[in-house]
């Protein structure tokens, strides 16, 4: 089995990045609405005006947008690619992050210098960590599979 990265591996990784990117676009607006609805339901919508709310929103967005989208992209890549996941999964997360950032800069007028932690560090980390976890969730041997493999090896010895 060759360990070289094939063209199809890169294509699958890019498609995984595309899934991550589209998921981020969709979830980012949904999560903003969700946060607002939760705060209204809790009767504390005014908290959004305080400086520390940026931290809270960044942590919630990290969980509900970037980790989940990176994970979904990673699931796709992990399903179609068997080798070189260490190289291809960050590519998946990186493509998702780059696509979203480009959209925000060109269509949302995002100033990267102002929102560096919220708009660069956390999305990049979330997408890449999510992609790794998604990719390895597919290739990780489950307990059942390990047992089956042991049984097969015993039968062969007999």
């Amino acid at each position, binding site marked *: 089995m060759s360990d070289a990265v094939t063209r199809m591996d890169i294509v699958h990784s890019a498609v995984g990045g595309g899934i991550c990117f589209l998921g981020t676009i969709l979830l980012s607006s949904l999560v903003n609405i969700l946060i607002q609805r939760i705060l209204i339901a809790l009767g504390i919508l005014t908290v959004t005006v305080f400086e520390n709310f940026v931290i809270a929103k960044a*942590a919630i967005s990290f969980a509900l947008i970037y980790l989940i989208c990176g994970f979904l992209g990673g699931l796709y890549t992990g399903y179609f690619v068997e080798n070189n996941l260490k190289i291809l999964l960050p590519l998946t997360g990186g493509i998702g992050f780059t696509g979203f950032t480009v959209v925000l800069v060109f269509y949302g007028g995002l100033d990267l210098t102002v929102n560096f932690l919220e708009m660069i560090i956390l999305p990049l980390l979330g997408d890449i960590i999510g992609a790794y976890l998604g990719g390895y969730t597919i290739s990780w041997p489950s307990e059942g599979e390990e047992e089956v493999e042991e049984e097969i090896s015993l039968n062969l010895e007999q």
Partner: protein
Amino acid sequence: MKLSRPRLPLMIFLLMILGSLLVGFLVIYEIVATHSRGEYLRLENRFIKIDLPRNWFVYSWKTENSTGDIYNVFLTPPNLLSAIIFKIHDEKATQNFMKEYNLTDALSVATFEIERVYNWTQSKNENASIIFEETGEIELFKKQAGYSKIIVKDGIETDGKFYDMSFLMMSYIQNQKLVEIAFWGKKEDCEKMSDLFETILNSTEIRM
């Protein structure tokens, strides 16, 4: 029947999501706990100290440019069509604003803003007309402030219908810094909010 254990990366993923959500909501809890003043949340910075109702849309921002700095606070309840706006100008912004529009004192600022809003409502609805007007001076934050109030017939549009609009503008100048406070919206909604507006105003301290 033996249940198989979830895969490790999936468990890490779920734990990271739960952990991040926990951090987010703990920070929100901390904000509420720290700023809670009875039924209100207190916003306090170098420009303003104000007790805000807990469940309102509130935005604060600062515009900085060559013509001076302006700190703004915008408050609006989620279920009523009305809003309160605070605008705190620094010396340079005050000077430029007064010079640009040829204004002389706080009362002329209030009158100018009233005119500006009325012109804006007329651009939205040609049939909008002033049906009530009041201008004068009042004591605000222990300072003499100019105020002007109008009610514009059919001045505000919502859900395709026009309603009477109420607009109250107050302004004062202290240490060459201009403070503007506006209270506007659908007339009925402003009437419902008037007591709350007074309570908010009484809790407010402008810092200059």
